């Protein structure tokens, strides 16, 4: 069983988000980067499957050299080897083409990633890769089991419910909780991760379909109006007559 897990290098969930003075780029100053939290569900499930059925877990990141600490972290958590496509992830289509190119070369049985990245929130790459490779994309999945060597059973969320899907390998799925319980690397993992292979490859000549031209921050709230708890019913009147939301 060969499993590919795609990870993004994203600002920590507690980061304050700022942009450069011209609002053209994200300001990385003082920002701590982490493995995209959604991707961690994919990574740990992949490792669990490997532990149960055997095989290998390869981590793939489309990113510049500053992604490598988090790629090593994924190796420390339990992936076997890693590939970094040496390019700034310009847009979803660009990233999808890089992943598809790596997948074509290595023919994985299962491709996993998080349901979206917490920085660009596109939720596009998994379906694009599925389309590029002509394999099923099960998005967003919260349960994944292998029934045998050629079939997987997944549960995916739909608005207002869930679907149970059985697919033949190879397939791609995006992960969300509670697919697995993300793990923290242990000391042995950190030590062995240093010597696990991390291959850097150059991007294929892929094009982009969108341009990010400007960033801004939403308007700040005008401040909070406090209501006396003894007179809590007043809130309902304010919501109807002042805020006009009831």
């Amino acid at each position, binding site marked *: 069983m060969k499993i590919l897990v795609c990870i993004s290098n994203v600002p920590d*969930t507690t980061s304050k*988000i700022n*942009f450069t003075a011209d609002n053209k780029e994200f300001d990385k100053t003082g920002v701590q980067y982490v493995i995209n*939290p959604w991707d961690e569900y994919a990574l740990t499930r992949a490792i669990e499957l490997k532990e149960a059925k055997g095989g290998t877990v390869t981590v793939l990141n489309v990113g510049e050299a500053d992604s490598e600490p988090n790629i090593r972290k994924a190796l420390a958590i339990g992936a076997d080897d890693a590939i970094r496509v040496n390019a700034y992830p310009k847009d979803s*289509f660009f990233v*999808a083409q890089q992943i598809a190119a790596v997948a074509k070369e290595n023919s994985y049985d299962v491709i996993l990633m998080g349901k979206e990245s*917490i*920085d*660009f*929130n*596109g*939720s*596009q*790459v*998994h*379906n*694009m890769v599925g*389309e590029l490779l002509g394999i099923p*994309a099960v*998005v*967003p999945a919260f349960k994944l089991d292998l029934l045998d060597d050629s079939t997987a059973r997944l549960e*995916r969320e*739909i*608005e*207002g*419910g*869930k*679907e*149970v899907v*059985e697919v033949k390998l190879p397939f791609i799925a995006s992960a969300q*909780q*509670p697919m697995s319980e993300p793990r923290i690397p242990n000391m042995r993992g950190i030590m062995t991760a240093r010597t696990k292979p991390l291959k850097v490859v150059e991007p294929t000549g892929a094009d982009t*379909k*969108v*341009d*990010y*031209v*400007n*960033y*801004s*921050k*939403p308007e700040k*709230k*005008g401040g*909070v*109006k*406090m*209501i*006396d*708890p003894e007179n*809590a*019913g*007043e*809130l*309902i009147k304010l*919501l*109807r007559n002042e*805020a006009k*939301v*009831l």
Partner: protein
Amino acid sequence: MSVLVFVEGLNGEVKKSSLEAATYGSQVAQQLGTTVTAVAIGEVKEDALARLGEQGISKVLYDGDERLSQFVANAYVKVIAKAVEQENARVLVFSNSNIGAAIGAKLAVRLNGSLATNVTALPKIEGDSFTVTRGVFSGKALADVALTADPKIIAIKKNSIDITSGGGTATVENISAELTDADFSEKPKETVMQETDGVLLPEAAIVVSGGRGMKGPENWHLIEDLAKELGAATACSKPVSDMDWRPHHEHVGQTGITVSPNLYIAIGISGAIQHLAGVNSSKVIVVINKDPEAPFFKAADYGIVGDAFEVVPKLIEAAKALDK
């Protein structure tokens, strides 16, 4: 050249988020000086489709193939691609639902188009330049994105467009993409819908959400009763779903569902930055918490410092007294 809107149904009616997409599509068509058509798939009643005229849709293309009652991405994409070709559509509008985003991504590859998901406002169109604004960094920022290829595929964030009404009646025509069994090879084995009172959390205009301050699942009737009086959906914070007090699909936050209702009422939730990321585009936020130092008050429009078990019954009483 035209604008095409994809419409999703639920229990025979058009979903609220699709009415938003229809409104958006009509307004884009006005900007471009062109027409807007909708394409609907699966179980939606014909009169519900005709009423899309209210949002300015003149024509609805409908594929009622019974096999399409369940979502099967490849089959849906084929029907919509056919509609795109037939209508010579240059702009495609979807709701940013799980289905809408999935079809949008597949179509973007198949048609070589530009895709923007999570879009929050109408486009700026100047000559050949076509720019939309989308939410990024989990609601903490917005980005202006130029869509450089055709067709331009836009998935709009829920509750970001006010639904218009007052148009006419749309004509409903059949469309068929001559689907074969192979198009349904990824058909789901089973579809299980949650039991709700009809208000889906991602679509809800009002959300009542409980946190650890509710002390246990046995107290959730307070959240549910208030939600019922307000016609709201219920939600919860991450610790609450982690402790299995509530199901995971109710978890709102950075690693749960993102919601953007008109009104979000947070009860017993302190307001960690990860929770705020899931709710910060709500139009009005109410925070009820015992702790006056709870960070959530900084993001709130209205606040009550008090015990949920005393405050919420008063709110339920006051909500009962409202003229509905």
